């Protein structure tokens, strides 16, 4: 099918996955308030994977599946020209797979959590669907205004989700903190858009590209605009020094939300970050190269060093996610085809391993907010060898160890850096990785090499069926991409092809 955006209706086809998600979100919302889901034995122990509340979860998964179908359908669609507000290219569609995968995994791991903590299932799942639609807008946007719309749709849903456990003060604190700092960063972002418009006369990324490349843009304004946009994105991807909110929010938010935020929100922000900078500001590479270089270096070093001393697992994983943002910023600094493809590939793997790790954390935490300290893991591995092994694989993958997808992802990022000859940054990346070994392995040694404080310490650990499903998907794909990454690599590479044609000379410019 040919998409011709002069006809309004064609926007509907181009936005089909987003529309499916939004509509489905409303359906879930209505189903949630219809009353019969507020069952009497709410909050009891047990495995209600097929209880009334969980029906909403399965319903949500169906919606995600439909959106995935729509996303797959878009592969058969060609767009005419590249000046529309919405891109229908491989880059967007690959990113959509990541968002859908993250949403599906998050829904799967939250069934029992929602039940135990007596959360409103309908709102919870609907917010996830709305936020996912927002992420898709960001990934598909060819216009800064659309990115902003997507950013806000996503962020407001996530603010609410961070504060979703309203009986918990930490969750409320997380929500408020995230909201205040998020609003603050949005201000930067919006002002950046305004200045870009002032400098180039457009908010369309293709037009910005043309304007910047032809030196028509006012250079002074442009530099400030680039800096402001970088700050706005920096907040969302939690790059140092804009990371201050991350540990507190990740610690306080409900664990499934943390898992999802750390993967999907970051992915959405990175995808938009890449499109704006690689395509829009392609010709201004020399201007933003040093900014990104330092941002990447400081993020990697700081996050990995602070993570060393964390005792709370959620905080540790929060700093780990900041560190991973640093690795991805290396790819942005490199700004070439391998780096962009590596970014997509890495985000996919990162989603799998991070949500997987958080899922095991939720199991250890009794599907609630208990036992979140690393010391609580003593002897966990031998008590629960199955998920103990899974957590070990997730940690090794996060550390970037051979045999896991995390290793291939890191190699891909390093290849991107090599193509732009960023040797110093590569060395900083691997040295900070050595530091990261310490805190990932610390969990591994506590769980396998220390004796539990009491015999039945881990007897209450439950892995409900849906979470089991999610864990198997995560581990399976991590191992598979760790051994046979070829298909995923080629897919990621072909997905960034369209991006390059728009930017014109994205490859080779990165020096």
């Amino acid at each position, binding site marked *: 099918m040919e998409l011709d955006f002069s006809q309004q209706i064609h926007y509907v086809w181009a936005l089909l996955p987003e529309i499916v998600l939004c509509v489905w979100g409303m359906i879930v919302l209505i189903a949630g308030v219809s009353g019969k889901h507020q069952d009497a034995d709410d909050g009891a122990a047990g495995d209600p994977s097929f209880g009334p509340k969980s029906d909403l979860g399965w319903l949500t998964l169906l919606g995600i599946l439909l959106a995935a179908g729509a996303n797959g359908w878009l592969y058969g669609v060609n767009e005419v020209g590249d000046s529309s507000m919405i891109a229908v290219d491989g880059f967007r569609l690959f990113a959509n797979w990541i968002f859908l995968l993250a949403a599906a995994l998050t829904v799967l791991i939250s069934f029992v959590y929602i039940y135990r903590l007596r959360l409103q299932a309908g709102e919870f799942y609907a917010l996830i669907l709305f936020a996912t639609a927002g992420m898709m807008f960001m990934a598909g946007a060819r216009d800064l205004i659309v990115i902003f719309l997507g950013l806000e749709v996503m962020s407001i849903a996530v603010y609410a989700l961070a504060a979703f456990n309203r009986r918990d003060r930490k969750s409320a604190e997380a929500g408020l903190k995230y909201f205040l700092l998020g609003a603050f960063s949005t201000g930067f972002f919006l002002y950046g858009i305004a200045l870009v418009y002032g400098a180039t006369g457009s908010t369309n990324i293709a037009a910005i590209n043309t304007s910047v490349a032809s030196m028509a843009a006012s250079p002074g304004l442009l530099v400030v605009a680039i800096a402001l946009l970088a700050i706005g994105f920096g907040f969302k991807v939690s790059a140092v020094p804009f990371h201050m909110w991350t540990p507190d929010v990740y610690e306080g938010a409900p664990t499934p939300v943390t898992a999802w935020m750390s993967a999907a929100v970051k992915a959405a922000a990175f995808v938009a970050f890449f499109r704006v900078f690689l395509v829009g500001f392609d010709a201004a590479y020399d201007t933003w190269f040093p900014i990104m270089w330092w941002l990447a270096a400081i993020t990697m070093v700081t996050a990995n060093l602070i993570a060393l001393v964390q005792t709370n697992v959620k905080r540790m994983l929060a700093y780990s996610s900041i560190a991973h943002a640093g690795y991805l910023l290396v790819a942005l600094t490199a700004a070439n085809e391998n780096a962009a493809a590596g970014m997509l590939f890495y985000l996919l793997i990162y989603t799998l391993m991070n949500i997987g790790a958080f899922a095991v954390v939720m199991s250890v935490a009794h599907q609630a907010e208990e036992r979140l300290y690393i010391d609580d893991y003593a002897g966990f591995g031998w008590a629960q060898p199955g998920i103990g092994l899974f957590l070990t694989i997730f940690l090794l993958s996060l550390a970037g160890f051979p045999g896991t997808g995390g290793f291939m992802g890191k*190699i891909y990022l*390093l*290849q991107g850096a090599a193509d732009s000859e960023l*040797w*110093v940054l590569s060395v900083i990346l*691997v*040295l900070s990785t*050595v530091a990261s070994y310490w805190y990932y392995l610390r969990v591994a040694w506590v769980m*396998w090499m220390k004796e539990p404080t009491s015999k039945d310490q881990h007897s209450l650990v439950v892995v409900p069926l849906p979470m089991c499903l999610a864990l198997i998907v995560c581990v399976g794909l991590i191992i598979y991409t760790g051994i046979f990454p*070829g298909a995923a690599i080629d897919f990621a590479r072909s997905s960034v092809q369209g991006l390059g044609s728009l930017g014109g000379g994205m490859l080779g410019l990165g020096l």
Partner: protein
Amino acid sequence: MINSMLESIGYTGWILHALIWMPILGMGLVLWAEEETAKHVAFWWSAVVFVLSLGLWWAFDPSEAGMQMVSQTSWIASWGVSYSLGIDGISLFMVMLTTFSSSIAILGSFNYIKVRPRAFYSLMLLLEAGVVGVFSATDVFLFYVFFELTLVPMYFIVGVWGGERRIYAAIKFFLYTAFGSLLMLVGILYLFYKAKTLLGFPTFAYADLLQVPLTGTEQLWLFAAFALAFSVKVPVFPFHTWLPDAHVEAPTPGSVILAAVLLKMGTYGFLRFLLPLFPVAAQHPTVVTTMLVLAVIGILYTAWVAAVQPDAKKLVAYTSVAHMGFVVLGIFALTVNGLQGGLVVMISHGISTGALFLLLGMLYERRHTRQIADFGGIARVAPLLTSAFVLTALASIGLPGTSGFVGEFLALLGAFETHRVFAVIASLGVIFAAYYMLPMVQKVFFNALDKPENREIEDLSRREMVILAPLCALMIWIGWNPTPILTRMEPTVRAVLERVEAAAPSGQTSITLEDGSQVVIAPADAQAPLVDPELNDDPPDDAAVIDGE
């Protein structure tokens, strides 16, 4: 006859794959087995793997210098990574040593490992697969994957089944080695990037990377990155501090594998990567001098440290550093004798130090102590154990007629041909070896049988005899008849040296002695032109920042 039999089953086509994948298959069997029978399954499985690997001895063509039994399958096509295996005269012995010591170590751990046997034996098999992979990979990416993969099982073996300070030792081992190898990864990617731009297609194949021309400066930086990774692994003197900790805390089989094969991955890396890939840097006088100085310091310093250890296992751990010093000395002598000597020391050290750790493990199982002072007069109650220990100790010292002598003598001879001073100083290490080893033997096995606990010590059991007999036989066999080994490694060693010499700067010459060995006149004091006029400073040895911007 054996050759035709091997040929009829297509041995050379599948053996290397089998040696990697059979242990991994064995992991599944061990995990599936009962707790009590897991050790038997693991042992018999590894024994089968070892017996299969014996065929390599005959299937290997001693006249061929390059890779043999090569097989290549594309793995990650878009990165140019292939799953390609092959062995030459350097890796042949390492592969056989690995399969041999793995099965010996598994047999030796029957009484030592009492908890969680299934997990332990499956990790041992995973380790075996990883090490065989390291020694037979001919794709640098594949090599790196296996190189790193060996860390994980060893980390858990030390950390879960080790002694009191096991966690500290495990994490130290892990971080030290990972630090080095990650810098090497950047080096590998640099080579890959160079190859991609020069050859026009992505490739990690070892043979392709050899074709990449590098300037002297590049070679020095890359040499530093690779040398750091391998030096930590060996370990070369200033990077050795993880080794005593890891050895002391590791369970006996872990120590055996660590000493017998894991350390060899470092010196193997020297021979496989450092010399052929960066020949200019490898014979840069400053580099050679630095490596030789570190080797000699390693030999002498650790000998002195070993002499004062009250813990017998720690003593043996330090002797490992000294032995590996001889290997490095032999390699950087850059002569045929030196390289061959280094290789023989690698084999001999694998056998004799592995045996020492096994023997100490046997003593520990009987007395639950490793302190030298707790023993005395064991010879009277356990004559067989004592005989085995004395023979092994003598082989470790390098007494003529044992394997240790052949290796150390050749290494020293090789060093003497090019760097007399170093050879003379290093040969003091042989005397020191007697100085630390023999008093230990005397205090433990001879002297008076004055402690009542020691009267109860039993002599070797049948299983222990089965373990020690092949080790002792090998020590003596290599000591008396090293020729079959030397002839198999010689063509490859010559090829490595020829590659190094071919890259020699014009001012440097090499001469051929009557016996056919090549001698490089290394310009340690001569006015030979430097590799790169910009680079007169000391080469970076501990930092490997590759600056390309």
